[in-house]
């Protein structure tokens, strides 16, 4: 850690520097409660794990973050699945300077997602997608030092996905053999995975997030 600090500050401390150092934090660990406690229409309660790391420079307006959402639910007796893997990168600009990292912000994000979703015997989808767009939100400090924070956010952008619909039971022979099949009626040798596509423009994410800053260090005033 001691080797990292000068590099992250962009300048080495010298004995001649007499300014009173202040404490700063390098990384904020965050979680999105909307992802953690998701309730999905036609599926129900689908809690997941959302973990984000936001890099906090010691000065300036900008932060960068990487986040991941992992949701894994399968209720096979009900033919329901809800599985999400979502990796998101975000660059934010906070309007307040001096590394306060609170108040309003604007950001740009990019994401990649894998999913397997099923609501009943005849409505299931599995696929991958990617997208990007803009995010905006507001951050409040919940303690005096500003280590614990609450933020709300909304993302607007595009998402392009290629996917396959799937069904329970063989759709050709219409037999219930306990297996799931691609919803495909053509010749087996002509089958190509991810032959359907989906494009979305609009709201892509919403967040109510709790963050806590870790790894204290000294910063110059």
């Amino acid at each position, binding site marked *: 850690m001691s080797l990292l600090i000068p590099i992250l500050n962009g300048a080495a401390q010298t004995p001649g520097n007499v300014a009173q150092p202040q404490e700063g934090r390098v990384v904020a660990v965050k979680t999105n409660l909307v992802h953690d406690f998701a309730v999905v229409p036609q599926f129900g309660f689908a809690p997941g794990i959302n973990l984000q790391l936001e890099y906090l420079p010691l000065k300036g307006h900008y932060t960068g973050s990487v986040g991941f959402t992992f949701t894994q639910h399968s209720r096979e007796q009900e033919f329901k699945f809800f599985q999400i893997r979502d990796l998101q990168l975000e660059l934010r600009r906070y309007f307040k300077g001096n590394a306060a990292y609170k108040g309003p912000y604007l950001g740009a994000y990019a994401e990649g997602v894998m999913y397997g979703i099923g609501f009943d015997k005849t409505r299931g989808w599995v696929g991958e997608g990617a997208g990007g767009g803009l995010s905006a939100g507001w951050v409040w400090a919940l303690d005096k030092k500003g280590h614990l924070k609450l933020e709300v956010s909304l993302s607007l952008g595009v998402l392009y996905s290629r996917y*396959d619909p799937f069904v329970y039971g063989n759709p050709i022979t219409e037999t219930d053999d306990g297996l*799931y099949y691609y919803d495909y009626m*053509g010749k087996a040798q002509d089958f190509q995975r991810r032959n359907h596509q989906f494009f979305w423009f609009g709201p892509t994410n919403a967040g109510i997030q709790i963050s806590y800053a870790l790894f204290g260090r000294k910063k110059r005033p």
Partner: protein
Amino acid sequence: MKRIPFILWAFLLSLSACIRPELHIPGQDIVVEEPILEAELDVVVDMETDWSVDWQYDWDATDDAIWGGIGYDEPKGYQVRRYFTGKEPDAPHTDVEAFAITETKFSRHFEFGYYDILFWSDIDSPDGTQVLVINEGLETVTATTTGTRGMVRSFSKMAGVRSAEDEPGVIGLKNQPEIFYAAYPENIYISHNLEDYDYDPARDVYSAKIETQMRPLVYIYLIQIVLQNNDGIIKGINGNAAMSGMASGTCLNTGHTNDEPSTVYFNIRLKHNRLFNDEPCDIIGGKFTTFGLCDMEPQTRAGSQYNGSREDLNNYLFFDLIFSNDGVTTFSVDVTDQLQSQSHGGVVTVVIDCDKLQTPETPVTNAGSLFVPSVEDYEEVYWELEL
């Protein structure tokens, strides 16, 4: 900080974690591949009119030589358009396979899924000059005919609108279409189920049959104009005749005629010294083929009454008579009721008492005819009438 790589590694590991359920490709284990479908075409003509009784023109060998037979002939070949709509019935056509067959049966490999197949018979023009025009689209195929000579007449009169009248002009006449048949079985399902097929061990194929009934989309009217008391008043005819208010085209898929009225040209012939209802007379006769009346359903039973939406359209029979002084006059007779009561063909009879005809005063040969003989005379004229 040392934990960050571990956390990222855990994220990447979970990225590749299995997403359930495990999916299978349907049809992998099915041994039937591209079954054969055998189509059998059956041409159905359901005409109840007894032409030999109702039609007293007495069609003879000369008529046969000029115009061909008066009935429906068996087709000699067929056009086939096969549309694969995938797994969805009633899906739009995105592609078509076109081929021709010469027999009423054909076998072909089919993929699994739904098919629409359109059949229509080849045109057998006696003189080799086909006037029927097939307009092919992916969703529908329509038929029209080429144009022929023109006619000087009120546009609204030609169109058959009873109440309208306007200044006469020259409009084009359509050729009468050749007889043809069509059928359009839809949503033929080619399943993977072996029980749907018969196994032919000789060919080692699974096959199924579809039986399709083809019906005529062109109907035959036999015209007879009975000249009573013709003691030399009518010297002869020049052969010109036409029928107004007929549909200018039809849809091969549905058999439904369009709503664009046209006037169809055909020829007639005069025979002297005939009997009509046991009375001596002269009879002008002719055969006239047509797609039918406007906005009309295809034939489902013989002699069906017209039930389309264009009862307002009149059907006028136009024909030229040559008087004893060589004067020519074009007559028009309203035969709407006869056509609407026999909307899929029949016999149309017009009786004229020649004693009541007025001989033209200034007999100049053909000057009184409304028929215009050459295309050049009316090429500037619109063919379709906006009603």
